[in-house]
Structure formats: C-alpha cells, structure tokens
C-alpha cells in the first residue's frame, strides 16, 4: 500500500515542526489568549458596559469567531511566504523532493495540506480557549474549526503559488503590510463590514477572510442558514481550486525548468 505523495510531504513538515513546537505554542495558544483578553475582555467590557451589542451579539461573541478566522489567516500567511522561499531557494528542500518520485505538484499540495492542517489544529485550540472566555454560545461552533481551516487554505493556495514565482523575498514585507494586515483588520473581524465606507465594502466582501469570518461567526452563534453557508463554501473552495491550479504550475516552472 503506497503512502500518497502529498502525505509524504506532510510527514516531512511534521518532523520539521517537532523541532519548532515552542514557537508553535506561542502562535497557537498565547496569541489567541492575548487577543481574546485585549479585544474580547478589554474592549468588550467597555462596549457591554454601555449596554451595546454588535450585530446583536455581546462583543466577545462577535469578536471570538472573527479572531478565530483571522489568526488562521495569519498562520496561513506565515506558512506561505518565507517558508516557500526556503524550499525553492534558500535551502532548496523542494528541489530535494522533486529529485525523488515526488513531483512539483506533490510538493505544492503537501505544503498547502500542511498549512490547512496546522490551521485546523490551531483553530481547534483557539476555539477551546474562546469557549472558556464565553465567546462561543452555540455547539455548532465546532464547525468553525474546519471553516477557519478552509479559509486559511483559500488564502494560502494563491499565496504559496505567488511565492514560488519570486526569486527573492523583496515583496514579502509589502504583502504582509498592504495585503495581509488590511484583510486581517477590515474583513468583519473586529467590527461589521457595514461600518466600512460604502466604496470599501465590496473590497472586504471579496476577501477570502470575510467569507471564512462569516462562516465561523455563523457557526459559533448557531444561526447560519444553509444557503449562506453554501455560498461562502463555494467561494472559498473555488479560490482554493484556482490557487492550486496556479500553484502546481508555478512550482513546476520553478523546480523543474
């Protein structure tokens, strides 16, 4: 029985991450804790004290699913930029893979699958913490974990593809500052998109993060309709599919020219 090629790549990532688990604990556990405390408790108390709700939710209930999806996105961004440059240029570890029966498409799929898995694990942990903070009123909230992982994959799929077209990391800080951070802040994470100026609302709605935030929030409050859920899923899955088609091509160009 053959191990699927993509799993062999994931195995490598697992082995590598065994060495990095300390950094992981901080990104998956400490950061959510800080965010939930600062935003959910700190900011939330001010809002709640004034008897206000956001979209009919206590602020903690509003922001917890937003943070869940947004930290999954940050994690995806972290895996999709510099680590790809490590594989294609700095350590050439992807080149080692394609010298074996694995192909460039397997390398791409493996990194994408790995990113989704990490996002899944991180989101499960986040959800647990958020539940303790009282940010998850509904048991449907469990579905927010795969939703956040899917959102991470939709973000990572095109970003990994892009990174493999680059010969240096020159553009990466710019992508973080002008791409990832605005998405992180303005995709309905911390406040409803309806608060944005009218011209910016369509932009926010086009971001994969908005779709995953909506899915996560719908899950944790337990009132997401099937039609809306399906629409968000279709968008996210389409982005993954398109990103993957691009990524398999850019990995091929880069690794087996």
């Amino acid at each position: 029985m053959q191990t699927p090629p993509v799993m062999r790549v994931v195995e490598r990532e697992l082995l590598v991450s065994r060495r990095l688990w300390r950094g992981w604990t901080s990104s998956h556990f400490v950061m959510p804790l800080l965010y939930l405390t600062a935003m959910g408790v700190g900011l939330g108390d001010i809002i709640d004290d004034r008897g206000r709700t956001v979209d009919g939710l206590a602020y903690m209930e509003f922001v917890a699913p937003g943070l869940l999806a947004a930290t999954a996105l940050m994690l995806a961004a972290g895996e999709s930029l510099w680590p790809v440059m490590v594989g294609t240029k700095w350590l050439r570890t992807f080149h080692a893979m394609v010298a074996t029966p694995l192909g460039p498409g397997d390398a791409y799929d493996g990194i994408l699958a790995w990113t989704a898995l990490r996002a899944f694990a991180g989101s499960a942990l986040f959800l647990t913490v958020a539940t303790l903070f009282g940010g998850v009123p509904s048991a449907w909230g469990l579905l927010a974990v795969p939703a956040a992982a899917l959102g991470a994959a939709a973000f990572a799929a095109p970003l990994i593809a892009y990174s493999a077209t680059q010969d240096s990391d020159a553009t990466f800080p710019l992508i973080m500052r002008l791409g990832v951070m605005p998405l992180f802040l303005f995709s309905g994470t911390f406040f409803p998109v309806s608060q944005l100026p009218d011209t910016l609302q369509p932009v926010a709605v086009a971001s994969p993060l908005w779709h995953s935030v909506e899915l996560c929030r719908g899950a944790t409050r337990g009132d997401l309709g099937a039609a809306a859920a399906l629409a968000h899923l279709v968008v996210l899955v389409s982005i993954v599919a398109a990103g993957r088609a691009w990524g398999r091509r850019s990995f091929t160009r880069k690794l087996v020219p």
Partner: protein
Amino acid sequence: MDSPLVEGRNLTKRFDSFTAVDGIDFRVERGETFGFLGPNGAGKTSTMRMIGCVSPISGGDLTVLGLDPMTDGAAIRSRLGVVPQEDSLDTELTVWDNMLIYGRYFDLPRAEIRRRATELLDFVQLTERRDDRVDPLSGGMKRRLTIARSLINQPELLLLDEPTTGLDPQARHLLWERLYRLKQDGVTLLLTTHYMDEAEQLCDRLVIMDDGRIVAEGSPRELIAAHATREVVEFRFASEKSRSDALSHLQNTGERVEAHADRILVYTADGDKVASFLAGAGDTAQAASILVRRSTLEDVFLILTGRTLDD
C-alpha cells in the same frame, strides 16, 4: 549486449532562446563510471538535470534506465540517486532526520530506512554525527551526507553533479575514496566535474563538454593519446620580454606550442629535449622555471578549445 543505462541522442536543452545543451550524443553502460568534464557554463548541470528527470528535454532523445523521462519521470527517479550541485539538505534538522525524511519521499518503510541509514552513515563516516544538526557540519561532511542520502533507495545509477567542488584537498580525497568503493560495489556512477584530476581518478570514460557541445569522448588515457602528446613542457618567465623572446625560439622546435599569459606549453614526445632547447637561446630568452610532465586531460581540453578548464 546490454542496453545502455542512459542514452542521449542529439539531446538539446534550451532556456527561452538560449541553448545550454546543443545536441549531444552519449551512452552510459551499466557498471561504468562516466564523466562530463567541462568548464563552468558548459551545460553539464543542464544535462544532469535532464537525466535526473527534473528538467524536460527541449529536443533529441533521452532514455534513462530504458525509460522515457517525459512519461516515466517518477518511475525513473525512484531508481536514481542524485547528488545535486547545490546542497538541498534540511540544515535545521539532524543528520539522522535528513536520512529518514528522504527515505520517506521514496515511501520506504521506516524500519527499512533505519536499517539502511545506519549502514550508509557508517559508509560515509558520519555515524558519530548522526544526532547533530546539519548546519554546522563542514562542506565535506554535508557532501558525504548528501551521498549517503542519495543511496537510501539503493539506486542503480548515481548522478553526482560536481561532487567535490569547493572542498579542501583532504575532503576531496576522502570523497573520492568513498566513490571508488561504490564503483567497486558495481554502482553505475555518472558525474560532472571541472577538475581534470577528478575525471582522471574516477572516470572509466568521459566526454569533454564545451559551450553545450561534446568536443571529445573516450577513456582518460585514450583522450590523452588521441589529442595530446606524451609529455608537456611548461615554461614560466620572470618578464614579458623573456617570454616573447623565448616564444619565437620555441616555435622553431617543430612541436606544438601553446602560449598563455603566464606560461608557454610545448607538447612533445620528448620533454627533456625540448626542456634543453632554450639553453642555446640568448640570455633574454631564459625561463624562470621549466617543468616536464605527462599530459593530462587539462591539456586535452586546452588543445581542443584553446582555453583552460577554470576559465
């Protein structure tokens, strides 16, 4: 007769409009050590990458292990060992983990990988370092680890792209000795190098490449016999004046003379006779040093292309 392990016919590699490999023909037989010798930019790596099925061919024909790299790339790669020109080790991980990960790429069972890795690390003399991170290892050790890793799937054919470039002499000799052992064990080796001594030491047969083409082919001895003379006399000079005066004298020897910026080479069957030739010339035509030596592959390359290998 056995079919060749690798065969290229009019093999070509183009990058956009630039032709890196310009229609080369070669055969590598089972059990031999075959070399591509040539200077930087000759097209050696491009050729190796096509053979390793990590670069599609642009023209001609290529078969590796009797298969077509275009359609059977993964199947071929599963039976190859590859030591690329640039290291691709997981330097953050330990020596052992590198072996383990690479074995898993071939989908070998863990127990089998452990068994082979223990043997292979012993073979490349890295057993003591197995739990150390790769990053701080010396260049020679990293190369040896890359070789050990490339053998994890017990390949029928081992591709080595400049295996000792950048290593100090001691590390090179250790590596050569290991490669020689592999060769004795019957592994077919295919290597590229721009060191003529490496080619002479290791290769049963080789082709000399220049500018994407093959300019000569044969065993080291055949190549020297066919293209160079038995001996070479190297004259070096203290001044440009003495060099040019001597040059006109030496050109009357009737032997083949190659003038270079720093020295004059005379190719001859009788080195001692040529070495004494300047004795009859004037004071201004005297050499600072005279060396009589046997011809090497470097001389073959020089005669064929007018350039040295490390130009």
